[in-house]
């Protein structure tokens, strides 16, 4: 058995759920699991990493790694890989993961499988499954000529069992690599919403042209607030400037895979259906009974969104709060 290195992500020392998924999957594979955490708060992750299956954790406690810098992160991952000598490297297909690991792969002369939804580890062999054409089909990714097989997993694709507090990881303090940087992060502007990103959200409430105007998205945010959901949108309303591109679901937007996707006033262009087809349960609300969205939906409601959505918000409130 070899070593699996898991790049963990955390918010001020709180381990992300997506990282727990990776640690637990790595632990199940029977390989030795080595976690790595970056930044001033990296030390705070060690207990959670151990509870979720890490045998060892490399802590690179350095303020230069508090925010993502592609060059600094690449150098530091490469340095840890050199020390640990893993055969497999797992990371999230998050904004950071997706930007960072292709560069890491190029530096390590190895392969990377991006945006995967299934993971199979057997000894040193890894195959991953990823959606292609935003979910219009799926492909198995097989590694060749890859000393370190890097797999970037989408969030919410792997199960998370309760943490085992009897387990702990050996902590290895690893000195930060300090390459000459040509990249400078000048500012990080926080997003307006504290909600999970669409790609990580478990519940999504999405709106389309049927909402008639931008102001009516308020109705969706009210519903989303009750459900703890993230609000998404169709391409038509993004192009109309009602909401930002970050909210777009579809082939030229985000591919999503929530447990519950509620599409309001979205007719269902093929590009949108591709982006949301990974959702477990799909609810479509549209006044056109022939809208293509109903072909993908689990539950369909033909009717006026302006009547139904507020009623739904009330019903969810009742159902979730007693």
């Amino acid at each position, binding site marked *: 058995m070899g070593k699996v290195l898991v790049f963990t992500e955390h918010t001020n020392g709180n381990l992300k759920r997506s990282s727990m998924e990776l640690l637990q999957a790595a632990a199940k594979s029977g390989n030795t699991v080595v976690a790595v955490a970056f930044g001033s708060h990296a030390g705070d992750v060690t207990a959670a990493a151990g509870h979720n299956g890490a045998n060892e954790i490399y802590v690179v406690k350095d303020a230069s790694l508090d925010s993502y810098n*592609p060059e600094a992160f690449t150098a530091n991952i490469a340095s840890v890989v050199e020390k640990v000598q893993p055969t497999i490297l797992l990371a999230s297909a998050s904004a950071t993961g997706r930007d960072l690991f292709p560069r890491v*792969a190029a530096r390590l002369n190895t392969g990377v499988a991006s945006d995967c939804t299934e993971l199979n580890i057997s000894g040193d062999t890894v195959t991953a499954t990823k959606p292609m054409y935003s979910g219009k089909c799926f492909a198995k990714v097989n590694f060749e000529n890859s000393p370190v097989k890097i797999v970037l997993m989408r969030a919410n694709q792997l199960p998370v069992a309760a943490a085992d507090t009897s387990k702990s990881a050996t902590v290895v303090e690893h000195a930060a690599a300090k390459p000459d940087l040509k990249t400078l992060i000048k500012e990080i502007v926080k997003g307006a919403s504290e909600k999970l990103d669409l790609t990580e959200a478990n519940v999504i409430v999405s709106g389309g042209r049927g909402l008639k105007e931008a102001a009516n998205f308020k109705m969706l945010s009210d519903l989303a607030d009750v459900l703890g959901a993230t609000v998404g949108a169709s391409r038509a309303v993004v192009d109309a400037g009602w909401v930002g591109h970050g909210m777009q679901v579809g082939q030229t937007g985000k591919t999503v895979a929530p447990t519950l996707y509620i599409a309001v006033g979205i007719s269902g262009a093929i590009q949108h259906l591709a982006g949301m087809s990974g959702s477990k349960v799909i609810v479509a609300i549209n006044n056109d009974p022939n809208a293509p969205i109903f072909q*993908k939906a689990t539950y369909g*409601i033909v009717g006026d969104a302006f009547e139904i959505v507020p009623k739904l918000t009330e019903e969810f409130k009742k159902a979730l709060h007693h």
Partner: protein
Amino acid sequence: MKIFVCIKQVPDTETKIKISPDQTGIDSAGIKWVLNPYDEYAVEEAVKLRDANPGSQVWVLSAGPKTRVVESLRTALAMGADEAIVINAENLDNFATAKALAEVIKAEGGAKVIFSGKLAIDDNASSVSQMLAEFLNVPHSTVVSKFTFAGENVVVERDVEGGAKEVVQMMTPAVVGANKGLNMPRYASLPGIMKAKKKVIKEVEFASLNIPATDVKVKYSGMTLPAEKPPVKMISGDAAAQASELVKLLRDEAKVL
């Protein structure tokens, strides 16, 4: 200065996907090929940068089967690119593609800024820009929705999770992966299209680049279509009845609440 744009030709987003018999790809019969939508933003930004800096040139570059990829290169030329190069190749993975692009850019004397789309909508991998930057030993930034050029450096704004933005300064040369929102790509004008038709597109054979076969790192197999969904369950009644029935079904039947 020289500005490069790396583009990819992809099936139109309207395409209904059919799997090839050996399951390693898709059945390309009847597919309409287009310039990757995110690459349109890259071409537009490059042309704008060229126009704002007299004496500059936009070179557009793509790796793929030359007989079809030249169409997308001509689209980019019609949008205003000056020169085009096709690397004639079949079945490259992202790693080998990035290597090939880097080799050709180096052979052409390098570039001040290299644009590309943030990802290609076929494999959604978003990896070639970053690998290319690594092979060229220059900084990169992807998911870029704002770009400012200041000679020795560029400042970009990139969209990250939850609506957050990062403002990043990179020393040039630099690789920039364009996101939607960066600009409004122009439609190619008729004179632009006519001019593009007459342009000679430079051809480079992948085999001539001496990239080892071991630079292919991943291969796809076992491609499948998504599982068929059971038919939709329609919920009838007035709005109040529909709402309460839906919530009941989500809780008791689908068990997602």
